[in-house]
Structure formats: C-alpha cells, structure tokens
C-alpha cells in the first residue's frame, strides 16, 4: 500500500464513522452544531496523529517492541491519555466556550475506539511516517463525517449553521418561507440516531447501486 493510499483510505474506504461505525457515542452526542463537530475533529486529529506517531516509534524499534508487547495496551492508554489531557488543558485555557460545549466528551477521547483501534491495527505494525499519514487521514475522515451529521442536525434542529463562535449563518428565513419551525427533536439524542441512520442508509444505497452497476457490467462482457 503506498503513502497516498494510507492517507486517503480514512476518507471513504475505511471511514471510521460511516464504514467501521466506531466511536459512535461521542460522535452522536456532540454533533449538535458545526462548531462542536469541528472542535471535536481538531482534538481527535491532534491526538490520533501524535498517538499513532509515538506508538509506531515505540513499536518499530525491535528490541523495545519485544519488551512492550506484553504491556502494550497499558502503554497505548498512557500515551493516548497524556495527549488527551494536554488537549483538555489547552482547550480549557484558550477555547473556554468549546471546552464547555464538548464537556465530558474531551476526556472520553481516551477510550475512543478509533484511536485505540488505529494504534493496535495500524501504528503498531507500520513505520512512523505511514502511521502519521494514516492518523491524519482517519482523523480528517472522522471530522468530515461529524461535519455531515452536525450539518443535518443543526440545520433541521436549530435552523442555523454555527461555523465558529459568532460566525453563524441564520437560516430562519428559509423556515419562515416554508412556514415551519425548526424541529427541536434533531438537537436531542433521538435526532442524532435518526440523522445517523438516514446518512448511513444513503451512503449504503449509493455504494450498493455502484456495486450492482459494476456487477452488471462484468456480466455483460
């Protein structure tokens, strides 16, 4: 697998949220606004890239790897927890609003299966550079997925798009034009599950359609 593939596979082919369906708990909880999704994505990007780098650095040294092997899960957790705590402290100091809206889900990144999964499945068996690319791709794919879910939920639930802080687009006029109210349900957990389900269904429908087409073409030949 070449480097570009390592980077790009996180976007669609192995998207952590839409294909592997990993780490759903924080993803569904925080996607109430675009701002939250971007903040969470940035935090995961930092943690995933660095944890992949450090872990593959440890595991690519043969001697060290042998020593670490029996205690590798605690080692991963120590590395990931330290990175997450750094993110949490920096966010608390400089991005207080985001810190408050993400709440408990920042410390919970420690046990996010995407990060632990990439550490065990990829970083521990590949070179540092490949692992960094993999981490970046996965994190960007995750962020993209969060953005899609949060866009659906925020537009339908609140009738606005909050890009960052006060930078927001108010879609109230569209709701006025249609003479309906934003559906408050979409900001609640039930809306999260519904949006996620519909998005997943759409993605599977498209990919199934494509696969069928391909199969027909092969048959026709």
């Amino acid at each position, binding site marked *: 697998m070449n480097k570009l593939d390592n980077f790009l596979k996180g976007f669609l082919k192995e998207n952590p949220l839409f294909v592997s369906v990993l780490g759903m708990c924080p993803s569904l909880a925080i996607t109430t606004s675009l701002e939250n999704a971007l903040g969470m994505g940035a935090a995961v990007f930092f943690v995933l890239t660095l944890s992949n780098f450090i872990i593959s650095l440890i595991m690519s040294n043969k001697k060290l790897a042998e020593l*670490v092997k029996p205690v590798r899960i605690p080692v991963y957790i120590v590395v990931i927890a330290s990175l997450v705590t750094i993110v949490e402290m920096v966010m608390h100091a400089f991005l207080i609003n985001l810190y*408050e809206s993400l709440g408990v889900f920042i410390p919970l990144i420690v046990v996010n299966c995407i990060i632990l999964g990439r550490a065990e499945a990829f970083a521990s068996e590949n070179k540092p550079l490949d692992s960094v690319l993999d981490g970046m791709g996965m994190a960007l794919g995750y962020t993209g997925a969060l953005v899609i879910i949060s866009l659906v939920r925020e537009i339908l639930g609140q009738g606005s798009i909050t890009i960052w802080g006060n930078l927001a687009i108010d879609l109230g006029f569209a709701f006025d034009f249609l003479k309906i109210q934003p559906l408050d349900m979409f900001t*609640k957990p039930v809306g999260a599950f519904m949006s996620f389900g519909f998005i997943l269904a759409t993605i599977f429908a498209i990919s199934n359609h494509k696969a069928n087409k391909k199969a027909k073409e092969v048959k026709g030949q």
Partner: protein
Amino acid sequence: MNKGLISGLVLLVLGLVCGLLLATVNYFTAPIIRDQELAVKLAALEEFYDTDNYTVEEITVNEGAIEAAYLLKNKTTDALEAVVYSTSAQGYEDKVKLLIAIDSDYTIRGYKVISQKETKGIGDQVVTHDFNVTGNLISDLASFDGISGPTAPFTTQAVLDSFMAVQARVNTDLGGDV
C-alpha cells in the same frame, strides 16, 4: 532479569515521562484557567453591584453548598453592604454553580448561574429561569418556583440547596437575626 519486570519498568518510565510532560503543560495553562474563572465571577458581580464603589474581600467558606463568600464594603464608609456567595450544588449531570447576592438588609439582590451541564433544553433553562425569589428576604423562600420537566427536579434541587445553604450561613457574615 525477569522479562515481565523489565516490561513493567518500561511502562513505569513511560508513565513518568508522560507525567512530567503533563506537569509542564499544566504549569502554563493552570494560571490562565484560574484567571478566567475569576474573571467570570467578577463580571457576574458587576451585574449586581458597581464594583468600583466597593472593596471586595474574598473569604473561603466550606459550609454545605457554599464555596466562597465575597464581602462588599463601601469604599467611603467602610460599612458592609452586601455579601455575594459562590455556591456549588449537585444537579442532574454535574455541579450547578451559582452566585447569590444578599444585601445587608437580608434581601436577595439577585443570582446568576456561572456554570452548569444540565439536560439540554430542559435543565439548562436554569440559566434564564426566574426562580421568583429576587427581592424576598433570604429567610423567605416560600415563593421559590422551580423548573419542570424530566431531570429538572434535580436541577431545581441544586438551586434550592444553594439558597438554603446561604440562608443557614448569612447570619454569620451579616451579623444579627433575620
């Protein structure tokens, strides 16, 4: 040496390195976080009183829900004119933190929620909800009006606990009977 022991030592070293790193980051961010929390409190005090006219003295209290009290003394006459209590009581999700301002004649001047993580859309009304006690004597909480809805009783209880704690404490700071 035993292999398992060496693995353990590697983990220990890694833990120490990470701990050191965290201590360093904390050293830089902790003062900023503390300043921010203080700034939020002072800005909230400003809502009740013009802090330019008062000297603010902070005392740490550890009674029930009360965490700290701010004694506001008039700058010219040096008379104690008000006490603002910083309280923290368990709500549904997390602690609900309030500032409760009491004038020297024991009336409730106002209150403000500084931090809360209550249920979105229901418990988080605590920020804007009028608990209908402003202007009452602190001894009279009969008109207290809570929030309704799922999980909201926990949130309401946190606010009520805070007021009750202030009720129990206020004589100590203002002196005399209510």
